[in-house]
């Protein structure tokens, strides 16, 4: 079986958020890049576990981005996976990214396509659904558990107020979140092996973006905290009722 994991590069979770060029660009100065946590901890690690359980699976990783996405793909390969594909285009439009992934997936004949729940920079939560629609495949989103049983995927997904166990015939697109696997740390052997694993660069197909980012803004600064003495919690209640009007 062939598995494809979508890997996105995001700023480290402690990275400073600032903008340049008149607030039109994210300031990448000094930013450390990481694999988007949902892609790494859940989608990728679960795919690796599936391959560990059945070595006949082949596991490919894909990232749509410029050359600076390659260190991220190498890092992912150090955790596991047979080969990586980079589609050489930088875009902030989910439709463009999804179109590139769908194009690779079409010719690759993948049975299982995994994405993270969302990117922690763009916060789209949209890529998995778009890829699924482009390929006319079922999509199970926000999965917390995934098992394969022959040509059937057994997926537990989050629903409002609980969980639901689904069965769906492969091929399928699944977005992964917490619960699906436990984060791993790459070992020395993995890091060495990753250096020689194939990393293919493919050129993008033409596609017009449906959206464009005009500008960024920061939330208004807080006025500062009002401290209340632990001996006067009634005062806090009064402030919440009368000043903030939230209770």
């Amino acid at each position: 079986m062939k598995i494809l994991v979508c890997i996105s590069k995001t700023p480290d979770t402690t990275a400073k958020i600032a903008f340049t060029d008149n607030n039109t660009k994210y300031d990448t100065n000094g930013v450390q890049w990481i694999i988007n946590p949902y892609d790494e901890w859940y989608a990728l690690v679960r795919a690796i576990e599936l391959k560990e359980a059945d070595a006949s699976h082949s596991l490919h990783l894909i990232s749509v981005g410029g050359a600076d996405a390659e260190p991220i793909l190498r890092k992912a390969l150090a955790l596991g996976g047979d080969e990586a594909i980079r589609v050489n285009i930088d875009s902030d439009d989910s439709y463009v990214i999804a179109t590139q992934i769908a194009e690779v997936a079409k010719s690759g004949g993948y049975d299982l396509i995994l994405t993270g729940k969302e990117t922690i920079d763009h916060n789209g939560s949209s890529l998995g659904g778009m890829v699924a629609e482009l390929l006319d495949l079922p999509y199970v989103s926000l999965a917390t558990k995934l098992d394969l049983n022959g040509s059937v995927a057994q997926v537990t997904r989050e629903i409002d107020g609980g969980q639901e166990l689904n069965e769906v015939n492969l091929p399928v697109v699944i977005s992964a979140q917490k619960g699906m696997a436990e984060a791993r740390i790459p070992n020395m052997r993995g890091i060495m092996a990753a250096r020689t694993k194939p990393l293919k660069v493919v050129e993008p197909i033409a596609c017009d973006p449906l959206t464009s980012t005009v500008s960024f803004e920061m939330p208004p600064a807080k006025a500062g905290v009002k401290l209340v003495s632990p001996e006067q919690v009634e005062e806090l209640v009064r402030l919440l009722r009368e000043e903030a009007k939230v209770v």
Partner: protein
Amino acid sequence: MVLIYADNINGVIKKSSLEALSYGAAVAKQLGTEAQALVIGNTSSDLSELGKYGVSKVQQLSGPESFDAQAFAKLVADKATECNATVVVFSHSLMGKALASRVSVRLKAGLVTGAVALPDTSNGFVVKKSVFSGKAFANVRINTPVKIVSLNPNAFTAVLGEGKAEVMTSPVSITTNVKVVSTEKSSSDRTLTESEVVVSAGRGMKGPENWGMIEELADVLNAGLACSRPVADAHWRPHHEHVGQTGVAIAPNLYIAVGISGAIQHLAGVNRSKVIVVINKDPEAPFFKAADYGIVGDAFEVVPKLTAALKASV
């Protein structure tokens, strides 16, 4: 025409969908057109009441008993095309997320997810959305004739007005590729992202046995429960309560954080809360910098007192 997809859970229209209806109605007004709602599945409430949120018509496609993104997306896209919708609105809920992206592809219509404000239509159609896990906003222009927006829960207040909507129900049947084997309800029936008040606690609570006072505080406030990541990782609390950059992102009116230090990754998921109250024994805890109100003190003393004071003041 603005078409708003209204999620329902077991036949009841969700609060986040009511917000989406009001939002869609406001967009329609801005564009000088009308707003209509689309409901898929069977419902238990009187759908004409949705008129109060500003929609003139409710189209219900009855029949489907469980959600399937693939089948539902087709229904929504067909309906949008049939009634010449220029804007389609979803709530950025579990179902909305899965649907909006598929409908965007079907209609080849630009999508902005996680919108936090009405579009700026003075020059095209520009929507403000939350990015960097709540640390910033982006203004995104939709370049296509049909626009799709999914609205963050609690970002737009549902406005109740007058009026009844005309309801048109037509049965549909869908074929789904996803078989629901079983469902399991979690202990709390309050959806965290929809809670107006959230009480959250962290490692400062020392152990799961001390959560009784947190639950009592949440009960007086009719609040949802949340926790920091280490608390969920240690299985003191269920995973679905984990908020932050790698957990659930929330934006309640009031967020009360007890014994949580306020790490940047935690703040990322809660900093869109309107009012933040921090209870922490360490005056240097970084959370105080992001708080509106704070008490420097021992949670084990302050929380029961706060619960009592809230009870006394109703």
